[in-house]
């Protein structure tokens, strides 16, 4: 009992005396945990919601049959309905239709429509049954009726009984909102109508998008899947709900993992701060601990004492962190509707699900980091030579054990090695490990480097300057580099992350900007809603557009989605005129391309996006099979192009080749170049003259660029948040370590006062120290950050999103943030010195007996 009381007494004494630092440490832990936890919560919420929303569309079926090219012929439906072992069958036609209304965002007026047979769907996906108005029961079969989910009604601003207009090709059709889908997933924007009516009105006659099956209870699902898959042949794939989940998770996996990694890096940065606070606190009390040892405290007891401190701090901080993280996640979900402003999870409304298991994990990480921060210095203190430790001034040597240059070099070297390794499960895990190792190595290397740099500075300064403040400052840094490095670790970690993110985001943005230049060369783009599986413009309309006056060039595009691998999201097929002599004029080709003259005669050229190379292993010169219509065709890869728009892959081919192979002469969009004499207004007026102008979606490439960049900025909003948090953590670190040092150096300052240094000189010296140290940290942080950004740009991005980019440096922003860091660190140092210096000189010196 006595032990416990001593324990508490020591803890209380320490915490009462160092209240502010304790608070700072707790805040640091809390911030790290909060950041990681909230990002994790939001990601899981969004994914769960997305997958639940998708699941609610598939209902309770056991097995689903899809066509590899999207829609498939309905004749397979009766076959499946009578297939042995099938209990219930539910044919579904699912497609997105274009609502004819003026919306700002061009991708925003798409509504997912499910055509179902209510009688078949009732047992498999009862949630999709519309609720007709009273006395209008036949609306479930009506060809002019549509049922909207609550979210869709709200989004479209419609009520039961209103009319809803859709563009189908060049036609506009009107459907009556016959009722709601009361059991639709919250926030999900979908519409349901009769399958026969949908096939007819939206021009999908004879087509289905999937058939859901419920099997007899004695049927083995896996065996059934294999058997049916073999019988249906290449055109189809048979999957279970579980397979669907893999596909959905795959869609956003890279995005989620990267955000989680960033969150961990934030936690990691926070942990440096915790470590430095803990380490400094232990070092400062070195003599106190040694005294305890002399008085009979055992090593174990002392170790326990220090670890308990760390444990209590870590527990409080981590608990706060969980609470703050949860609060932030809820707030963010409500404000940003969970998709981080990105396009990854459209049309859903996630809600946070608190999982005790995951909360415990983040709690343990926060606590573990704190305890670790206390352990390393504690072990040194415990095993120290008691006689010498009792003496004054040994603090700096304490850190020798903790930080050694050799291990720093090992970290840096293995970090560089890791960058050379391929991704793990298609994720840049090793890239992130390399980043962590670079950070650790860089920080561990700092004392040695600081000694080197400041020793050099000392020689230089002493030769040319007589300024006593600068001399003292430099001399201190040169001779006590370990303490400096602790103060700097937080600054270094956060600044290098800021640098890395800034370089990465700017490089990405400039690359996207240039890419947009390349992919949007025309002045105007005209799109039209598809009519079923056909593009909306038929030959006749194409001629009408071709004969418009005022345009110097017109390119037609046929764009569609197709599935190459059922486990992966769909890829995009773009057929368009491509410059046969110099394909690079049309496509943003990487260096990996060959001229068409190098292809064998008769081969059909195909240009693939970088994602196709990574995901499907396509290589230039290789022969590949691509399904179009109901057939597979052989192509030869002629080049690789950069694509920031479709991370799941895209391929481009000559429109003429496409039309020869498929006899599909319809197209969905047109690129128009203006004559030199034609103004934009005249061009728009000319387009308005077309008889079908009311269903056209006309976009100026300028606007498209702007909105693309706006989407880009929105997607990176989270990284800006992370940068700000990193800055705050870094500054907190400076404040914490400086104020800790000030207290430890009270005697030093009193000594200086005794030999005639004025109070204001000491303050200036402190500010200068802060300035010098931060400058050093900033330079080092810049080098580290550059290294990390190279990893982000050339390893993490290509490995997770399958695109490459060029390096661009955001000099202005970097200079600005360095300036802010310098000024605020100097200010912090100056402020934390103010109190210390004003204390009684005599008392301070007397302390050193």
């Amino acid at each position, binding site marked *: 009992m006595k032990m416990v009381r001593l324990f508490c007494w020591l803890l209380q004494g320490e915490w009462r005396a160092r209240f502010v630092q304790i608070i700072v440490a707790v805040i640091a832990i809390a911030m790290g945990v909060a950041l990681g936890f909230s990002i994790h919560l939001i990601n899981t919420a969004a994914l769960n919601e997305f997958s639940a929303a998708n699941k609610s569309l598939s209902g309770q079926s056991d097995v689903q049959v899809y066509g590899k090219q999207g829609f498939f012929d*309905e004749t397979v*439906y*009766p076959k499946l*309905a*009578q297939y042995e072992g099938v209990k219930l069958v539910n*044919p579904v036609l699912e497609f997105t239709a274009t609502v004819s209304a003026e919306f700002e965002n061009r991708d925003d007026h798409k509504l997912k429509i499910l*055509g179902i*047979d*209510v*009688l*078949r769907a*009732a*047992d498999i996906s*009862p949630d999709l*049954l519309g609720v007709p108005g009273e*006395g209008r*029961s*036949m609306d*479930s*079969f009506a*060809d002019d009726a549509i049922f909207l989910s609550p979210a869709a009604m709200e989004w479209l601003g419609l009520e039961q009984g209103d009319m809803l207009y859709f563009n189908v090709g060049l036609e506009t059709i009107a459907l009556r909102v016959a009722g709601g889908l009361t059991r639709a997933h919250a926030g999900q924007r979908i519409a349901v109508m*009769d*399958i*026969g*009516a949908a*096939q*007819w009105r939206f021009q999908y*006659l*004879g087509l289905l998008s999937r058939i859901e099956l419920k099997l007899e209870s004695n049927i083995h699902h896996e065996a059934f899947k294999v058997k049916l898959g073999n019988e249906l042949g290449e055109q189809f794939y048979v999957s279970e709900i579980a397979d669907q989940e893999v596909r959905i998770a795959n869609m956003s996996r890279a995005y989620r993992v990267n955000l989680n990694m960033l969150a961990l890096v934030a936690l990691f940065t926070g942990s440096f701060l915790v470590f430095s606070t803990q380490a400094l606190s232990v070092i400062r009390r070195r003599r106190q601990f040694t005294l305890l040892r002399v008085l009979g405290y055992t090593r174990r007891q002392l170790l326990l004492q220090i670890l308990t401190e760390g444990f209590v701090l870590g527990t409080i901080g981590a608990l706060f962190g969980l609470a703050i993280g949860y609060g932030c996640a809820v707030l963010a979900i409500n404000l940003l509707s969970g998709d981080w402003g990105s396009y990854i999870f459209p049309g859903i409304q996630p809600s946070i699900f608190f999982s005790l298991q995951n909360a415990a994990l983040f709690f343990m990480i926060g606590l573990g980091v704190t305890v670790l921060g206390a352990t390393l210095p504690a072990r040194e203190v415990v095993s120290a030579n008691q006689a010498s430790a009792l003496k004054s001034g040994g603090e700096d040597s304490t850190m020798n054990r903790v930080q050694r240059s050799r291990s720093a070099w090992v970290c840096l070297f293995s970090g560089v090695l890791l960058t050379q390794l391929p991704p793990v499960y298609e994720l840049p895990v090793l890239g992130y490990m390399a980043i962590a190792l670079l950070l650790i190595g860089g920080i561990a290397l700092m004392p040695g480097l600081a000694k080197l740099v400041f020793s050099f500075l000392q020689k230089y300064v002493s030769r040319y300057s007589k300024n006593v403040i600068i001399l003292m400052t430099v001399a201190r840094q040169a001779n006590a580099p370990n303490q400096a490095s602790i103060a700097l670790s937080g600054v270094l970690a956060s600044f290098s992350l800021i640098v890395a993110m800034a370089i990465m985001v700017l490089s990405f943005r400039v690359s996207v900007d240039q890419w947009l230049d390349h992919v949007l060369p025309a002045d105007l783009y005209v799109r039209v809603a598809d009519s079923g599986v056909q593009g909306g413009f038929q030959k006749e309309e194409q001629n009408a557009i071709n004969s418009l006056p005022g345009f110097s060039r017109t390119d037609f595009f046929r764009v569609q989605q197709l599935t190459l691998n059922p486990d992966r999201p769909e890829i995009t097929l773009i057929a368009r005129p491509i410059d046969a002599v110099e394909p690079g004029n049309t496509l943003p080709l990487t260096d990996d391309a060959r001229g068409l003259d190098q292809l064998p005669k008769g081969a059909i050229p195909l240009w693939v996006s970088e994602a196709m190379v990574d995901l499907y292993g396509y290589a230039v010169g290789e022969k590949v099979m691509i399904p179009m219509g109901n057939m597979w065709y052989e192509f030869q890869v002629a080049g690789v192009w950069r694509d920031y728009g479709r991370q799941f892959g895209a391929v481009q081919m000559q429109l003429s080749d496409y039309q020869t192979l498929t006899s599909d002469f319809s197209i969905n969009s047109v690129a128009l170049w203006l004559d030199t004499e034609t103004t934009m207004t005249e061009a728009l007026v000319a387009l308005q003259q077309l008889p079908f102008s009311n269903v056209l979606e006309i976009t100026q490439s300028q606007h498209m660029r702007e909105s693309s960049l706006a989407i880009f900025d929105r997607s990176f909003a989270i990284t800006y948040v992370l940068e700000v948090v990193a800055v705050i953590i870094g500054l907190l670190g400076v404040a914490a370590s400086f104020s800790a040092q000030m207290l430890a150096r009270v005697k030093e300052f009193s000594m200086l006062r005794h030999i005639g240094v004025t109070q204001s000189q000491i303050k200036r010296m402190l500010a200068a120290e802060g300035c010098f140290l931060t400058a050093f940290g900033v330079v080092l942080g810049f080098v580290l950050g550059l290294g990390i950004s190279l990893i982000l740009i050339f390893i993490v991005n290509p490995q997770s999103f399958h695109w490459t980019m060029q390096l661009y440096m955001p000099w202005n922003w970097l200079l600005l943030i360095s300036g802010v860091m310098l000024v605020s660190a100097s200010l912090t140092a100056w402020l934390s010195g103010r109190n210390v210096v004003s204390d009684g000189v005599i008392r301070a010196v007397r302390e050193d007996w």
Partner: protein
Amino acid sequence: MIPLFFNQNGVSWLFLLIILWPSISVSQEAVQGNRFAKVSTGYTLVFPRDYGAHPDFRIEWWYVTGWLETDDKKTLGFQVTFFRSSTGHHPENPSQFAPKQLIIAHAALSDPSVGRLIYGEKSARTGFDLAYAKEGDTNVKLDDWYFVRDADGHYQTKINAEKFGMQLSLIPTQKMILQGEHGFSRKGPNVEQASYYYSEPHLKVAGTIKHQGKTLAVNGHAWLDHEWSSELLDSRADGWDWVSMNLFDGSSLMAFQIRGKDGAKLWAYAKFRNAAGEVRFFDPEQIEFIPERVWQSPHTNAVYPVEMRIRTGEIEWRLIPFFDDQELDSRRTTGAVYWEGAVRIFKEHQPAGQGYLELTGYESALDL
């Protein structure tokens, strides 16, 4: 007579609405114009054509009720109904999925040892040869359920419900009965409220039943109704009582009354045929349905006159239910509740035959 349809999967409101609530079917008809064929007096039924479906009419059903006996002398009641309904879909819709016709099948088994009606149902739109009601002869199919008339006049039916199954052959032993005037059967004071209607009484039944995990060989007798119409009921109608009787002496009787909102008789009909084939009609005034004992359903609180006296002219029939709880309660899904059960027939306190009684419109809490 008129089978009431309900459906577990939430779609039979449709049929209830079409059939039960004439005001709605009338208004829908008004919306759609007179697209459906009308029932009129001058028509002569032609067979085998009229065994088949009549897609020009709004609704149609083949409706079999009967009594069965297993090898170990256990008695069961059964009901099998196939129902066709036109949706009034847009005739220009070329889609194979266009809901031209809907087929509904409904089957029930009355086993006193279970004490409750066991039932199953199924519905689908026609198309892809998965569900159809063919013209020319009776041939209705709904996935693996069917009701077919062979060239020799025998009917074959198969039901494969969740809780039970039946595979039965029904063999005519007598000539059919054209109900009403040569098959034109009025349903109300207004002559337009009518259907074409014939019955095949005293069908000999043989086959198997899957019940409680066992497959049982069964024999028995049944009654078939085939009826089609576009407009059936008066808007004042509230429900009806209907009975079919296969009498032991080879005679048969079908009677029904349409009740008004006040519970009074709005219309009634009965036709008796003896074994020799002599037919006797009764005027609406000569027919009386007199409740003898009521049973209150513990499930719905509805009160049904499960024991009845039925007067046709000077003859009085007494109906005793096989067991009381032959109520169909599907309020959970459709809100439809009615009583449809096997009844024993007595005449002058002597057992006279076996039949089926249908009581609709007694459940008060329909607004659920």
